[in-house]
């Protein structure tokens, strides 16, 4: 009987690896999900209003997208974000992460601006408070300002349709 123990251990390990291979080891779940959006107070790009805080995100569901003009993943998701804000009611707030305004403006002019509002986080402090570890990252907030979903990496139609939309429907 005890001679079969190694075999049992092996079978368990094979099973573990089989399922393990379907997970991306780099993706980190956010501990912020289910919690209120972290406090911040950031200047806006267009200056109206001058600054915004977490309180300004309440009232309706909103997507908070950390992005930067220097980030390749952001270029990748940009056309889809444009399409998303054109076709749906969703509010999109961009937080420009560690990016110079001089770089951002031509980028937006060239590619278009999907954001209802852009906040600038030059020092990346808000990024730390939101647990951002690699732009682009997108947080989904419900009307009460609670974080209900986080997407690491470019936003895609699949993520939007399969994960985010049902969540938004369920909360509203």
């Amino acid at each position, binding site marked *: 009987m005890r001679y079969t123990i190694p075999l049992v251990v092996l079978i368990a390990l094979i099973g573990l690896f089989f399922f393990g291979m379907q997970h991306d080891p780099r993706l980190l779940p956010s*501990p912020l999900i289910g919690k209120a959006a972290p406090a911040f107070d950031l200047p806006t790009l267009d200056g109206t209003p001058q600054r915004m805080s977490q309180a300004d995100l309440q009232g309706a569901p909103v997507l908070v997208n950390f992005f930067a003009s220097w980030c390749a993943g952001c270029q990748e998701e940009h056309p889809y974000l444009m399409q998303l804000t054109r076709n749906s009611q969703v509010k999109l707030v961009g937080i420009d992460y*560690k990016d110079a305004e001089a770089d951002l403006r031509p980028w937006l002019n060239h590619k278009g601006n999907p954001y209802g509002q852009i906040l600038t986080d*030059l020092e990346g402090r808000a990024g730390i408070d939101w647990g951002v570890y*690699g732009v682009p990252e997108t947080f989904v907030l419900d009307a009460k300002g609670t974080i209900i979903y986080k997407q690491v990496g470019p936003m895609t139609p699949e993520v939007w349709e399969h994960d985010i939309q049902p969540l938004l429907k369920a909360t509203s």
Partner: protein
Amino acid sequence: MPSDTNTPSSPRRRGPSFASPLHEVQNWIPAFAGMTKRLGAALLVLTLTLLAFPAAAEVETVHSPIPLNEQQEAFYKDLLPELRCLVCQNESLAESQAPLAADLRYEVRGLIAKGQNEAQIKKYLTDRYGDFVLYKPPLAPRTWVLWFGPFILLGVGLGMVFAYARRSRSASSTSAKVVVDQAALKKILDEKAP
């Protein structure tokens, strides 16, 4: 490695040579690919998928260091290797060259300067990034197998060793015949092999 001490306080730009697209970093060297990866990751800067040379470069904020007294500095040095870099993931915050790691080093120094203790600083980080950021897994039911497993296994193993020894002693009296064969075998082997 932007050092924590004595760095200028103006925002600087990361040169484009750092933000090169990371070509498949070899992870084949069985033992040390981890380190290869670390270095590669450091070069990878912040993005998972840098497909092309970015048009602009990331603004790297370099702060002037927060001064710490000697005791705090020692605490800082002890604490930092226990914190994992989120970007290059196989390095501690002490080692990482990623800008986020530099930012977090700055934050940790700030928290230490404010007099926060280890638990408070770790909570600050886990509130944002989860347990992943701690190289020392917390003692909780989900990690019991890690902290106690080896010692339970050791207890079981010791029990098995003692049981085996007892069994072999009681069995050895009944198998005299084979013991003789073994002895003959050994004798021949030893004769021929000086």
